[in-house]
């Protein structure tokens, strides 16, 4: 589904590459976890795949489409759940979703039905006509997710979709993502919640300094390190304990 070839990104004035000659294949129907410390290159990689930033070099294909030739087509088959809430606070949940759904040319009854169903599935039907500004962080995260899946994307990118939400909201989001995946959506997900990733992802890639340093199914990775009991142990072994603060 996704083929990444020698993809690199160096920001203007940066000393080093944020993503460096990265090769990666993600198959259709996978839930792929992209894990790494702060500044490792996760968001940069996802931003390139979502056509938000331009790669310095290399290429990638999503469902056979390349950003260079088929940017608009590509946008129609992918969905992005950004780190920010990316919603209008003074609009209601339904108004936000009607607007973002319309951007995919979904209209009329179909759009309204899809919105109602998604709100119900994510436990928000009672708040459909409430303004986003009155929502808790967890509720906003759920609406943020719905806004990205109304057009039923083939590939869904999620940049830390459960950060700052309560356990209940997190469970609802993860369950819904699993349901989407069962229906055929390929999911690429970044998170700092390694326990969540261990149970949610079918395969993970640990990225550091712009390169994938480990790749495989969570259980295989854990088994690959004798002293590792979980994915977090693997992660610490591979990336070290030093702080990764960056500005």
């Amino acid at each position, binding site marked *: 589904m996704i083929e990444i070839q020698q993809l690199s990104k160096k920001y203007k004035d940066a000393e080093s590459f944020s993503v460096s000659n990265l090769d990666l294949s993600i198959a259709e129907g996978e839930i792929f976890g992209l894990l790494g410390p702060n500044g490792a290159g996760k968001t940069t990689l996802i931003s390139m795949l979502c056509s938000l930033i331009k790669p310095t070099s290399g290429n990638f294909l999503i469902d056979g489409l390349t950003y260079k030739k088929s940017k608009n087509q590509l946008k129609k088959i992918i969905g992005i759940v950004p780190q920010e809430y990316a919603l209008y606070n*003074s609009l209601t949940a339904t108004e936000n979703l009607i607007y973002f759904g319309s951007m995919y040319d979904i209209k009329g009854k179909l759009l309204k039905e899809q919105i109602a169903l998604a709100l119900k599935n994510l436990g928000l039907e009672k708040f459909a006509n409430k303004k986003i500004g009155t929502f808790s962080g967890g509720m906003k995260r759920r609406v943020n997710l719905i806004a990205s899946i109304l057009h039923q994307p083939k590939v869904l990118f999620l940049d830390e979709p459960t950060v700052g939400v309560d356990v209940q909201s997190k469970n609802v989001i993860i369950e819904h993502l699993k349901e989407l995946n069962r229906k055929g959506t390929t999911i690429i997900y970044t998170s700092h919640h390694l326990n969540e990733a261990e149970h949610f992802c079918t395969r993970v890639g640990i990225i550091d300094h712009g390169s994938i340093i480990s790749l495989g199914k969570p259980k295989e990775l854990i088994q690959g390190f004798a002293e590792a009991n979980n994915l977090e142990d693997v992660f610490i072994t591979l990336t070290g304990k030093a702080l990764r603060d960056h500005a």
Partner: protein
Amino acid sequence: MHKLWASTYKEILLLIRDFGGLVILFVMPLVLIITITLIQDSTFKTVNDTKIPILIVDQDKGVISETILSDLKASESFEIILEKDEADAKELVFKGDYQLAIVIPENLSIDLTKKIDQNVEGILAKFGIEEEEVKQVQELTKKEVMLFFDPATQQAFKTSVKNGIDKMISKIETAAVYKAFQQQLTDDASEVIFETDSFISFKEIMPVKNDKELVPNSVQHNVPAWTLFAIFFIIVPLSINIVKEKSQGTFVRLRTNPVSYATVLGGKTIVYLTVCLLQFVFMLLIGVYLFPELGLPRLDIANRLPMLLLVTVFSGLAAIGLGLLLGTVAKTQEQSAPFGATFVVILAAMGGVWVPVFAMPKVMQALSNLSPMNWGLNAYYDVFLRNVTFVEIVPEISLLLLFFISTTLIAIVYNEKKNAV
């Protein structure tokens, strides 16, 4: 089309949900236009209710000072306060308590009469008309009417007062000359030798529409100028709207959606253009219905409405284009809001909203041609005051349209370049 409509509907919702912003958008321009028109109305009124208090130090106590005093009173522009001491008057004016003091020197009337009598006698003697021997010419010191102005007084007011006093004195001198000749040439005071009424008079010819003179007034001048100013202020909320989208993340989402930046801007353009038109309609209603209640002249829009709306549409588009560009380029609200507000003031100044373009230095006159507010203002004046046809405003509205197209295109290209993928 569906995406454009959705964008437009979203912008409408965002606007009407921001009640404070809505009030600012619609009420502030009305407050501005009422305030400015009330203040500037006195400039246009021939009979002014507001009198400026001025000090007069009358050391002359003669015919001339009486004439100056009566003329000043007759002008109904000044409240005359007599002050005995010149130094006190000077101090009061320089402290800013009064804007003006006029000091009429001692013996002005007597000396002027003497001077004129001497001149007249001299002239008549040359013609051999003077029977008696010409008296010994007495040396008279030149007299000065002194004017003290508050240093904060504007130059325009100073010039106007100086011209007024100068005219009064010339009139008195001329009358005195005529009187001296009259006395020398006849003993009969009732005999009219000279026609002393002015031979040359002025008549201002106004544009005429339907046999009716179009007399400009403060309202006809101020409504277009300040309406345009208010319309251009739309660049502030519009640019903030765009910057806000960038900072709250919705713009990032839109960039990943299959929608063009032009469509996103199109929705904003439609909504903010509607706002401009509504602002204009409200201002017209104020001019037509509220101004007469405030003692101001009624705004005359008879047969002008379609052309006025046309000028407003194009002026609004020019303002919106600028707002779209500013919002696209600015990274924060702290950049867009102060820059937008200041830039509008600069464009207004360059465009002739405050000082007429003809009164500007040559460089500024040339620069004013670059201000879209100048094009808009000329188009409004053409319609409001010059009674022109549609063809005559085509150059101005074409420039406004071109400005909108250019700024919007620059915004789109800038956005594409900046976010090039």
